[in-house]
């Protein structure tokens, strides 16, 4: 069987519009810090980018590979703490600390994954919940990493070398970069056989095995991608707050999952859309309503989650998927279910 194939060109007219949209919006996003002088909207955007990256890390493991984890925060914590301890106690450049944190988190991911992947569905979810609680208790009692007091970053050295800045703009660009990196990771997965294999594993492990997929290996690959990304997010959060304590790094599993599932699991931009809606709602509602101390903003937040999961089980991306079909009507026309001419 000779295999010939034609490399489809990328720069065709059909792709012109989306590429233009992508470039303009990236430009707008990159110019935003120059024009927006008020810090709070910048903070909200930074949180959107950060939680998109963290959501993508959860999405790779739970959205694509179908292993629902409620303990993603362990890897965020490991990443954040590794870089913080290395930076504060040993003066290691946080960027190296971030890489070390990612490696350590990947190892942890492998250690936790190996036994736990034998568990299915609910049992895996609850096991991961127990794992993050165990990690939280250990870190709170471990003096070397500052225990319950957390780690205080000395506010003397600023600049890229120390990953600490007075102004918000550098954080903004790093967060944006982190989000793009997370999308790059998803692209690598979707553009390679790994994506297909993970989706098969999510649908039915028996079928995956029958088609020659080494299921534990590919689950471990998904875990590696997921933990690396989560750890980098943890390092960014620690450097952004210039403070690392168990509560701020080990209690993020549920928020990360919520906004990703709201956005739409198993799709590249689910986390971004989920974060784009949920984070502003949370931040602004808290800023303007919470003063009364009656948790009005929390009620709104809870209601939104329940309502959206009922109306849009596939996540908000379902709405855009619908819109995309209607919008690109021409494309939709071609793929109406064909009449099968006999063989």
């Amino acid at each position, binding site marked *: 069987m000779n295999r010939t194939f034609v490399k489809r060109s*990328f720069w065709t007219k*059909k*792709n012109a*519009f*989306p*590429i233009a*949209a*992508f470039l303009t*919006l*990236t430009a*707008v*996003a990159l110019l*935003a810090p120059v024009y927006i002088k*008020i*810090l*709070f*909207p910048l*903070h909200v*955007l930074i*949180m959107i980018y950060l939680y998109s990256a963290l959501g993508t890390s959860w999405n790779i493991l739970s959205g694509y590979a179908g292993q629902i984890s409620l303990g993603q925060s362990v890897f965020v914590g490991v990443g954040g703490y590794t870089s913080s301890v290395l930076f504060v106690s040993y003066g290691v450049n946080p960027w190296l600390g971030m890489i070390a944190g990612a490696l350590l988190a990947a190892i942890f991911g492998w250690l936790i994954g190996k036994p736990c992947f034998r568990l299915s569905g609910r049992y895996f979810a609850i096991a991961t919940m127990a794992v993050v609680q165990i990690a939280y*208790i250990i870190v*709170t*009692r471990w003096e070397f990493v500052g*225990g*319950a*007091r957390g780690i*205080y970053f*000395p*506010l*003397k050295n600023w600049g890229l070398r120390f990953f600490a800045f007075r102004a918000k703009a550098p954080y903004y660009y790093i967060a944006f970069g982190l989000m793009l990196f997370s*999308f790059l990771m998803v*692209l690598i997965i979707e553009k390679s056989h790994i994506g297909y294999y993970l989706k098969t594993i999510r649908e039915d492990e028996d079928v995956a095995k029958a088609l020659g997929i080494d299921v534990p290996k590919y689950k471990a690959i998904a875990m590696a991608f997921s933990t690396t990304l989560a750890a980098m997010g943890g390092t960014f959060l620690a450097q952004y*707050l*210039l*403070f690392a*304590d168990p*509560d*701020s790094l080990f209690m993020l599993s549920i928020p990360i999952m919520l906004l990703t599932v709201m956005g739409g699991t198993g*799709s*590249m*931009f689910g986390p*971004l*859309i989920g*974060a*784009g*809606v949920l984070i*502003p709602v949370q931040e*602004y509602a808290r*800023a303007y309503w*919470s*003063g*009364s*101390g009656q*948790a009005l*903003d*929390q009620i709104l937040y809870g209601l939104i989650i329940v309502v959206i999961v009922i109306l849009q089980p596939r996540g908000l991306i379902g709405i*855009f998927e619908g819109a*995309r079909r209607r919008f*690109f009507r021409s*494309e939709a026309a071609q793929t109406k279910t064909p009449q099968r001419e006999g063989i």
Partner: protein
Amino acid sequence: MVKRLCGFFALGLALAVCTFFIYGVCGFAYAAEKTVKVGAIFPLSGGVAQTGVLCKAAMEIAQEIVNGKVDDILVPGATTEGFANLGAKLELVFMDSQNVPEKAMSAAEQLITQENVVALLGCYTSATTATASQAAERLGIPFLNESSTSPILTNRGFQWFFRCTPDDDFFTRNFFEFLRDEEAKGKNYGRSIAVLYENTLWGADVAKAVQKYAAEFDYKIIADVPYTARAASLTSEVQQIKSANADIVMLASYVSDAILLQTTFRDLDYSPSIILAHDAGFNDPNFLKTVGSAGNYVLSREVYASTLLNKPSVKKLNELMVAKTGYPLDGNSARALMGVLVLSDALLRTKSTEPDDLRQALLETDIPAEQVIFPWLGVKFDPETHQITTGRGIVVQIQDQNYIPVWPYEIAGADVLYPIPQWKDR
């Protein structure tokens, strides 16, 4: 494939950017008459919400006093209406930290950049104070902390951070001074100590301070028991303290565990001869209201005690608080109220609301003792660490559901009831 990819990215990003524009635009509030805005960040939801809400009420009372003309309360800012030197009134802007460090920081940033506050007050829990004060330090705005007692907050070398409450180190030393004075009066409470503390930031600091001063005053720590905050049951912890049977039991918990501890003592029929509790949970009005008579005989360190009511202004403030919230003033809300007054005193003396001028005014603070609602020697800040130097803790004992000061002796309302009777004959 490419079309789907870029299309979605465009939509997702557009959605994110435009949602925050909409919120951002409608977020600007307009202040009608000219006011000096001061930000206040407190945990108004989550585990310690109730304490935050009471502090907020106390600070609103202080705001009314500063803005209005009140002559029967002898406190800074009472006799003037607002700030004559700045031609404006005080406006407190509250924000909820949800007791989450990251949210406290973003609240501080929003108050500074969007509400343009001239100074910040807050946060009650040490962890949230840490991140909020970092934001203030980065943006160069004075931050006056009124009740977080973790020592680390004032040795970070911050320029803009001030604290007008003694820290755990100071309070713990007070306890040991109290024990030494009691011993001098012939009452010997024994030399062995058991410490049971919540393993949060604050609890860990208290335990460290106890170890330091136990060595200095030569007491022996025979049990050091940290426990997980908000535990489902504390029986095994109390059992461990019971089996250590130390002469003195020291506790450090926020209010939910303080309540559970006291009821567990009663359930396990264990009453040590003396309990020294570290502030926070045991002074919270909720504690006595919930635990009732079981709370008797507990000794706690405090800055405020209702029997200071003989001071006229404290009596009046307490009435205002009861009228507003149904709760009397307690250590936390009183310090929040005092924080507003100290800041107002500085605002009255500052040349302008520029951060440097306000900081200079704060450094020069020297409020005389009689204008302070606590038994302190006044309010002065250490030029280096900006920690209050003239503060003094007092020790109170709960005697038939009432906080009675027992030390220092000059303001003591009664003698220490010792030893604590068994549960059956209470």
